[in-house]
């Protein structure tokens, strides 16, 4: 049973990073930097609980806040850069963050043992959960409470004017400006919120794996983050969850018997999915169809 709880933990955290990319994608910005914000959250939360003795909730609040601040800071120069250039810029930023942590040493002696991040070695012994008697199931529930919370918030956004505004900006910036929308405010706000979600996810990640290192926050993670909303479709938050469950659950665990070939399959799956269904599973027309099936209501798509 522990195995399934562990899997659920992974799916939960991946859903969070997927959601962080989702909200940014709505505004038409393709960001490969979410892994970077995630890394920031991971190291910050880890250092707060291990080195400063904070409890988990305040630490996660801080990691989320830091993620938001860094993302906000990136959001502004990102505005100067359009389309594919933004992809490159965010890719470079994500790599820069990873390299930063590769070089980052901050160790403090605690009870005779040196704890804290140590460059390439990473950050070991983030043992808040075990030290406080959390079981695997406890951690899993903890993670999923946050996932459901974030999903609920984003779902609410989608039903509100803010969600429609995000999508309007994503679809046609010129028209959006022409109805009085402030592109800067919209895009930076989305990036910031995405950063907050990623920071939260990272903080949680650090604690359930207990050992983080720079290599975990590279291009593969950045790709996962983007892959979930793209594969799942941008029509709704549920697309991202479904994609995360599918990829992590079915593909990686279900095909465990394929051994090392799993990672290979991930790349091939993406190529295949993009050829067969370029708009993802739950795109706007599909969602409309689903809604009609359940006796659609007026309003938010």
């Amino acid at each position, binding site marked *: 049973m522990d195995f399934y709880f562990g899997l659920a933990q992974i799916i939960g955290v991946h859903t969070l990073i997927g959601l962080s990319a989702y909200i940014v994608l709505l505004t038409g910005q393709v960001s490969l930097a979410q892994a970077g914000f995630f890394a920031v959250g991971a190291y910050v939360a880890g250092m707060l609980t291990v080195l400063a003795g904070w409890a988990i909730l305040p630490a996660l609040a801080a990691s989320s806040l830091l993620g938001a601040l860094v993302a906000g800071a990136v959001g502004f120069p990102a505005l100067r850069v359009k389309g594919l250039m933004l992809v490159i810029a965010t890719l470079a930023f994500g790599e820069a963050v990873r390299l930063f942590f590769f070089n980052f040493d901050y160790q403090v002696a605690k009870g005779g043992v040196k704890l804290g991040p140590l460059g390439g070695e990473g950050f070991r012994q983030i043992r808040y959960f075990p030290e406080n008697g959390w079981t695997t199931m406890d951690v899993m529930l903890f993670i999923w409470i946050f996932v459901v919370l974030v999903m609920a918030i984003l779902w609410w956004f989608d039903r509100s004017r803010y969600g429609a*505004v995000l999508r309007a900006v994503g679809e046609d910036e010129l028209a959006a400006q022409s109805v*009085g929308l402030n592109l800067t405010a919209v895009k930076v706000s989305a990036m910031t919120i995405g950063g907050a979600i990623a920071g939260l996810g990272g903080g949680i990640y650090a604690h359930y794996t207990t050992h983080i290192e720079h290599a975990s926050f590279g291009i593969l993670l950045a790709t996962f983050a983007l892959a979930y909303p793209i594969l799942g479709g941008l029509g709704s938050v549920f697309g991202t969850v479904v994609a995360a469950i599918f990829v992590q659950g079915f593909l990686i665990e279900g095909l465990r018997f394929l051994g090392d070939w799993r990672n290979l399959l991930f790349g091939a799956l993406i190529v295949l999915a993009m050829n067969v269904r370029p708009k993802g599973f739950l795109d706007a027309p599909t969602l409309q169809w689903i809604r009609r099936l359940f006796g659609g209501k007026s309003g938010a798509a």
Partner: protein
Amino acid sequence: MALLELKNVSRRFGGVRAVDGLDLAIEPGQIFGLIGPNGSGKSTTVNLISGLFPLTSGSIVFQNEDLDKLPTHLRLQTGIARTFQNIRLFGQLTVWQNLWVAQNSPADRAKRGFFSRWLGGQSGVREEISQLLEFSGLAHRQDELAANLAFGEQRRLELARALATRPKLVLLDEPAAGMNTEEISQLRERILKIRAQGTTVLLVEHVMELVMGVTDRIAVLNFGQKIAEGSPVEIQADAAVRKAYLGGDA
């Protein structure tokens, strides 16, 4: 006092003078027409007023305020709205959402707080949007994705969305393109209703049937310059206009 004034406005793209020393004054409550052959600078003028391009020289004054420093989205919040020649709807949003997104005017801000305007549900704006839907005959299509609308419906939505920002001046960029006589007649009625509600209209158009039938005053552009200005009757009789645009002496 004129609502909108263009004073010696010029816009160059490299060597091309798209708009050259244009003077225009539009009074509140007018339906003002802007006509001219292709390439005469009509669309560029609309783009200059809405703030898409900066001016090369001259100034644009709206309600006594120089628009020069104002970025596009703020101009649109001071009361200028526009439609696009090639319709630019938010295709993946529903009709309702297209109108909702545009609820940006100072009147909206006064009526509702920040939280309610951005994160509130639909009920708060149901009244305003229903009015717009009624006006453009789209109430029965409010949940349809804009991309799925028929061409005529899209044009009506484009217009409704411009009106959703509660503008004092609305710039219509060739709204009649591709319409048949029946639709043009309906459009004419709508434009008159817009004026009746207190909004001033600048109509850029090729379709003479519409322009001559609905405007109070017309300015004619050719090669970026104004070659004539007057009432529809005067313009139709003007020799220079006939030569450049309406069809010579035949």
